[in-house]
């Protein structure tokens, strides 16, 4: 069970660059454990610290600014989260406290990883996203709106991701409810395409 996402009211921290990649969000060298935790400290390490080893914060990096301290919304440019499929990028963001990312567009694997981990990815026009910097936003997933300074912006999200985020559903548990039809399908398929199921070397 994930934490459900319903509404969020928070400061939007602008990181308005295009092609922010997952190697930058969480560099491989910061993925020190084989599990999902202990990643927040390495989040954006190459940009966040002037000296990565000594963890000296770069005061200019948006997340380091005092007004970002309670920010749970991150703003991005085009193709946010491109590159490596590492889910650690989303785990690091979530552990750090980010709950929603608003960007012009997302890389597909990153976006799917967000939804599986209770982080809401919102796509809006570049000019709208740019106008959100450092504002307090009201996000409602149910209404599919972001409200900034009284102006309501609607966003689109597919039904299933919306439902999974709203209810904090575990996708595996949900799919296992369809196990009977999956079993029937597999039994038929074994007859149709036996070569898929040869398993060990022929």
């Amino acid at each position: 069970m994930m934490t459900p996402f319903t509404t969020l009211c928070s400061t939007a921290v602008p990181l308005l660059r295009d092609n922010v990649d997952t190697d930058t969000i969480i560099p491989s060298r910061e993925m020190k454990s084989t599990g999902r935790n202990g990643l927040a400290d390495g989040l954006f390490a190459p940009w966040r610290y002037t000296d990565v080893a000594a963890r000296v914060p770069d005061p200019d990096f948006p997340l380091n600014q005092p007004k970002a301290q309670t920010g749970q919304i991150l703003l991005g440019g085009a193709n946010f989260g491109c590159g490596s499929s590492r889910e650690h990028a989303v785990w690091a963001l979530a552990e750090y406290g980010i709950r929603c990312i608003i960007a012009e567009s997302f890389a597909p694997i990153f976006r799917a990883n967000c939804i599986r981990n209770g982080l809401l990815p919102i796509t809006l026009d570049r000019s709208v996203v740019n106008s959100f910097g450092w504002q307090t936003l009201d996000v409602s997933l149910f209404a599919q709106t972001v409200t900034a300074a009284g102006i309501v912006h609607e966003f689109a999200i597919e039904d299933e991701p919306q439902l999974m985020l709203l209810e904090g559903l575990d996708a595996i548990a949900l799919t296992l409810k369809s196990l009977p039809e999956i079993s029937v399908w597999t039994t038929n398929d074994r007859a149709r395409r036996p070569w898929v199921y040869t398993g060990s070397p022929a």
Partner: protein
Amino acid sequence: MQVREAPHLATWPMIISPKTLFEKIWDTHHVSQTAGGAHLIAIDRVFLHERTGAAALKSLAASGRPVCDPTRVFAVMDHIVDTRPGRGDGTLMEGGSAFITETRAAANAAGITLFDVNDRDQGITHVISPELGIVLPGVTLVAPDSHTCTQGALGAFAWGIGSSEAEHAMATGVLRLDRPKTMRVTFTGTLGFGVTPKDMALHLLATHGAGGGAGHVVEFAGSAVSGLDIEGRMTLCNMATEFSAMTAIIAPDEQTFSYLAGRRYAPAKFDDPYWALLKTDEGATFDREIVIDASTIAPMVSWGTSPEHSMAISATIPQGPDSAHAYIGLHPGTSLLGTSIDAAFIGSCTNARLSDLRRAADLLRGRHIAPSIRKALVVPGSSAVKRAAEAEGLDKVFIAAGFEWRASGCSLCFFAGGESFPEGSRTISSTNRNFEGRQGPGIRTHIASPETVAASAIAGVIADPREVV
């Protein structure tokens, strides 16, 4: 929940409306549609590696859920495994050996097939899966690795996922998907002398952007694609993730079937009627079409920090984002040709198969890399590629030219936290990503074909491979 009956194969020929190759694979793997509108798509193969695989297997085990069919799940050690001679579980990356030992333990506990550190069949996931016939035309294959799109070159619907999705596929045998859009990229004509599939991919990225394929499954087609050998097709499909596409696919042809027939996990013969249907029907429509005249493509090199920052090797650097120019240390309006380099890398799932190594070795034979090159590596894509290259004496050519010859793995395609290039290096690399810090903190990466890497290493500056005679 509405349950839609999966179309039976036998009904295929009766389906009137023409379909794309992707749609046919989608339809044959369609189990049902959920109330929320998602599609349950059957997954034929899951491939894990030690960088992200242990997390998925461990989390699955912790939730008490078994792998539903371990015979269709494979794992390999490729990402952080050492590539220096005499390797074991130790890694140059601090703490890296835990990823190896934990992946091994988790793989054994789950009963899946593991290609371990010193297994004969070890290699980069996307190199060994085709070599062993694990990926086949018409199958669905997923891996928690973005370059899984490489394997679409064999006519499979193969794509990269996150760890949670890998867990989902292993536990249930299906994934919940929204139906992707379709795009066809047709390369007409023929490639010019010295122009390679890598250049096709970089040309597509330079002209249509790193987000150009978002939401789409891209079918590569056209005479310049069917004219490629299987390894070249893999190079082209490899960079679909850089295009933000869900994945890429190429219709299997005689070449594909003869490449795969008899490989360890592949059928001995491709005589099932299923195989003959694996092509886009005449008249099938795509959501988007791009046509590129292959004869207009030149050898390409990246100039910036995204693969879309790529240009014809003799062009001048365009105006890009300031951050990219600042990181790479090159100004708009200047030339890349003649830019001095400090390091060279031939490797990765993009360009480290036997044909890649042969073409690079052809340029290096009887030559030596420039004295200014401080580090030059060749890392074969798999242990089988390494053996085959050594049988042809390619290792000797590389070593005589001043390259280090390594054991197979991802190696310096990415910086894992251990080995890197000398500080501040400008590197010419046959890999697929030139992101900031991808090959090490502060390392400036220029991605190009293995030929361009070899030619540049000889010259000590970025050089046009067509001029090495």
